[in-house]
């Protein structure tokens, strides 16, 4: 086994920014808006770096698909402890329609090319909330998947994953190579401090085009419209219980 882990990181609008919809409802305003690494991707990078620190894997490769600015996201991953980066350059129209299907095709091609033992991704991106890339990548590679991982431990050539599911926690054991997706409680991502960022400048980021990997980026989806969620109606305060019952009767709920 090569002991190489591929970690996918996505550049998204920062979680603390208030999202605004474009006036023509075609999308969300991204120009001049603060971007950062998807929080679940941070958790994925942290897990990969932890595995390397425990000497269970040898190399952590951070991958990002997007325009030039995605390199900043890869640099953050390098500052957190990844060894090298791969920037798959996708820009313009292709980037606007880039979705989980295209990214999973890219990741699958890269995994084969880099002989990866594990692919760790965030469970979903906070901008599109698809929660599909990990699952699609595993399917394309025909690899087992441990999704919504809240605990990961390696046992030889197998991985024990504790998954967060609706009913509670599920523990599974899967063979490597495998795909894992990180859930919120998997670990506490370290902060990329300034000294680490300076050190990371020496690490290499390779530039790759999707065509080099033989991936077709055409999207099968078309975004028709983007709308803001409905405004929350202001609540009403009532003085007595009788008033409350009366109001409920008025609106036909009682």
């Amino acid at each position, binding site marked *: 086994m090569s002991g190489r882990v591929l970690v996918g990181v996505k550049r998204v609008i920062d*979680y*603390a920014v208030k999202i605004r919809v474009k006036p023509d409802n075609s999308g969300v305003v991204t120009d001049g808006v603060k971007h950062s690494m998807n*929080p679940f991707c941070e958790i994925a990078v942290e897990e990969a770096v932890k595995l390397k620190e425990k000497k269970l894997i040898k190399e952590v490769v951070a991958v990002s698909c997007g325009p030039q600015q995605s390199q900043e996201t890869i640099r953050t991953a390098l500052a957190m402890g990844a060894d090298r980066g791969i920037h798959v350059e996708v820009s313009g129209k292709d980037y606007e329609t880039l979705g989980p299907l295209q990214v999973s095709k890219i990741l699958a091609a890269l995994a084969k090319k880099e002989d990866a033992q594990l692919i760790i991704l965030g469970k979903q991106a*906070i901008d599109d909330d698809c929660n599909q890339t990990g699952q699609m990548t595993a399917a394309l590679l025909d690899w087992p998947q441990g999704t919504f991982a809240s605990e990961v431990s390696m046992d030889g050539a197998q991985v024990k994953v504790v998954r967060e599911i609706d009913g509670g926690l599920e523990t599974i054991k899967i063979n490597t190579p495998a795909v894992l997706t990180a859930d*919120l409680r998997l670990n506490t991502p370290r*902060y990329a*401090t*300034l*000294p680490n960022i300076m050190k990371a400048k020496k690490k290499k980021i390779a530039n790759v085009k999707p065509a080099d990997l033989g991936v077709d980026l055409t999207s099968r989806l078309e975004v028709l419209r983007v709308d803001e969620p409905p405004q929350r109606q202001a609540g009403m305060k009532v003085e007595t219980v009788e008033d409350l019952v009366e109001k409920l009767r008025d609106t036909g709920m009682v």
Partner: protein
Amino acid sequence: MANPLRAEVVRLYKNLLYLGREYPKGADYFRDRLRAAFTKNKSVQDPEQIKAMIARGEYVARELEALYYLRKYRALKKRYYEE
């Protein structure tokens, strides 16, 4: 300031400045207070005292990292997990 410690102090200052960019009350607020705190102690010569202050500065850096992490964790927990 004692020579080897000077480099450490400058490194600490740059680190805190970098961390302060995401401060909830604003990067400028943080930067002003950071500068005030460092200039107030500009004349201290005793290396022991300087080391103690550097340790305190590093403590503040760790507190900031914890603040940012908790803020992010709580925001994501609220958004994605129905309690």
